[in-house]
């Protein structure tokens, strides 16, 4: 045979493992939903900022990873480490809440600072869109390598919050308490955010600015404050997401650990329709599921990202505004 055909025909390119895919289908589904919940939370940050400013906040992944560092430090301080902590449920919940609040605060503050330092001067100068995007990339790198300067390039020690225990079985797949915690808590946070945007006065301000910044300003909405609030909400959600992420991946605290997650979350936001809060939820879940299926089908964890991206490109080809369409302004008509 011709060497080229040998080269392409043998199994050294791509393997499909259909039997593993069938066997692990439900496991992957439930785990994918847990990951999807995390993606959705991060995707909300992208979507909110995009809805209001029409800006891809590239540095949002760094807002997330800063939160993860806050979780790491809080939990380390509270005595957690790379072992199963033997403490009562009540004190565990207390500790996790503390870590969650710390992460949300740190991420929220970083997000607002980012807006103040990097984006506001550009808005003052009426800078073109490309300048915002490049600034965002610059900020993302600056934060990443500031962390690297401070903590070094290797990942932090793992902090295990609790060992996942199977609670019940559905379709032959175990559902662990960890998956339930992540999924329920994340959905709860998203419902709260959705209600906040759709039902409160502040939320109305955000929707008004998203719809038409100039008219909103004329109607007495403080645009700068709305923008700050948007960054703050995105940061808070990213902080919460970082807690769930560390719960799932205890050794995931690394200076560049947020980057890939951020890309996936952004893909999720675009998939659902960027600027659309419920779209972020849907997109996050889809990316979580697709990634998990692809990973088992093709046999390496890195495939999840590849598949997620191919899915993104394919959907954008047929529906350039994402599945649910993009509009924060018309979230509630």
């Amino acid at each position, binding site marked *: 045979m011709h*060497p080229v055909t040998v080269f392409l025909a043998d199994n050294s390119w*791509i393997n499909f493992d259909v039997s593993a895919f069938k066997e692990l289908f439900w496991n992957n589904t439930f785990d994918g939903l847990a990951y999807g919940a995390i993606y959705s939370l991060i995707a909300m940050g992208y979507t909110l900022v995009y809805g209001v400013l029409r800006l891809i906040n590239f540095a949002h992944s760094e807002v997330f990873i800063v939160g993860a560092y806050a979780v790491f430090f809080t939990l380390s301080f509270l005595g957690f480490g790379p072992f199963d902590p033997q403490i009562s449920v009540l004190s565990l919940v207390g500790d996790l809440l503390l870590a969650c609040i710390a992460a949300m605060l740190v991420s929220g503050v970083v997000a607002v600072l980012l807006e103040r330092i990097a984006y506001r001067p550009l808005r003052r100068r009426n*800078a073109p869109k490309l300048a915002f995007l*490049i600034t965002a990339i610059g900020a993302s790198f*600056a934060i990443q390598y500031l962390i690297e300067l401070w903590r070094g390039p290797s990942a932090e020690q793992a902090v295990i919050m609790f060992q996942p225990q199977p609670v019940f079985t559905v379709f032959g797949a175990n559902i662990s308490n960890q998956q339930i915690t992540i999924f329920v808590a994340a959905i709860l946070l998203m419902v709260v955010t959705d209600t906040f945007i759709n039902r409160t006065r502040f939320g109305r301000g955000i929707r008004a600015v998203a719809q038409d910044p100039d008219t909103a300003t004329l109607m007495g909405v403080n645009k700068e404050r709305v923008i700050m609030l948007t960054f703050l909400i995105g940061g808070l959600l990213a902080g919460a997401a970082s807690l769930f992420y560390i719960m799932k991946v205890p050794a995931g605290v690394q200076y560049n650990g947020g980057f890939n997650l951020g890309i996936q979350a952004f893909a999720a936001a675009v998939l659902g329709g960027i600027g659309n809060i419920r779209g972020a939820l849907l997109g996050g879940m889809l990316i979580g599921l697709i990634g998990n299926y692809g990973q088992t089908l093709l046999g390496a964890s890195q495939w999840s990202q590849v598949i997620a991206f191919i899915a993104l*490109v394919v959907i954008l080809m047929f529906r350039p505004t994402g599945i649910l369409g993009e509009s924060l302004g018309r979230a509630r008509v």
Partner: protein
Amino acid sequence: MTAQTQTEPVRQHQESSIRRFRNWWNSLPRPQQWVGVLPIVVLIYLLPVLNPPGLTTEPNVNFPISMYHAAVLVLVAIGLNVVVGQAGLLDLGYVGFYAIGAYVAALFTSKDSMLHKLPYLATLPLAMVVTMFFGLILGTPTLRLRGDYLAIVTLGFGEIVRLLATIIPALRGTVGFSGIGHPPGTQADGQPIFSVSNGTPWYWLAVTIIIVILLFVGNLERSRVGRAWVAIREDEDAAQMMGVPTFTFKLWAFAIGAAIGGLSGALFAGQNGFQNNQDFGVNFSVLYLCAVILGGSGNKVGVMIGAFIVSYIPDRFNFLGSQKYLVFGVALIVLMIFRPQGLLGARQRLLARGRTAYLRLVGKPEQLSSDSALTPEKGGGA
């Protein structure tokens, strides 16, 4: 207020002397400009041999090899400038094309690959063809999207290429390909001229390729294609209205940029002699972008200077280490706030004949547009 009025005349004076030089330079016919540039080109060729004491990166980094890396980055920046600077498409996955080029060179010349062996120099055009093909594949679905979607999809593409290099067994992950080929020719002692340790011949090869590519890209810029790119960059909707087939020209920019990226990747792999999946992170794409933005997106001379700075500074001051990403990340933020057009802004000039015709008609030298997609919008600074 008073400070402003005092500095204003000084700045005007400085600008006018620069402008006078520029007008004088632009008024020269092209052959004379070439003669004027010749000594600079000779000097550039002689750089690794001269090894000027203030400029040298030794003892930390071998100077000719450092210069070679700078030359490769200059080539990358020229290619990325076609995409970002000329056509105004933000491509964050440029390292993907670079990686594909490097892998083409590796797959067809390394002893570790099962493929047919080709002479190294033949892999350079092959790398261009292959990456151009990938550029078309990536561009066709995504260039219909809005600008910011393009950025994220290209970013994903760059990551996908890196990940595929890791997870596809035939691409050998971190083990990589060793013994990548080099151009033919041996020295008197039987050693190959183009060896891994000697950067000078590689540098000369790279500079020669850069000059060829510059001629090619420069002619493209002054052609109908280049005018279409500028039109798209300044206002895509208006360009479409005026009958510019924007999608086709964006795709062209993308494919040509990709081909140049692939060429530089293949060049890099050749001198390196070894290729694995470690050199293609997103941070490289950002570094390339920084080179283009720093020098002045849309200005060939500018992006070359920018690329040289981005490559040379970490070699010269090597205590920077990985902190170069921090430095260049901050540089991007600061540049966008204070000088978004980069060191040299984008300029679109008429040809020498057009200039004389313009001068005859208008009675004064052409007004250079320093507009680029990055200069602040005029008026209405709320």
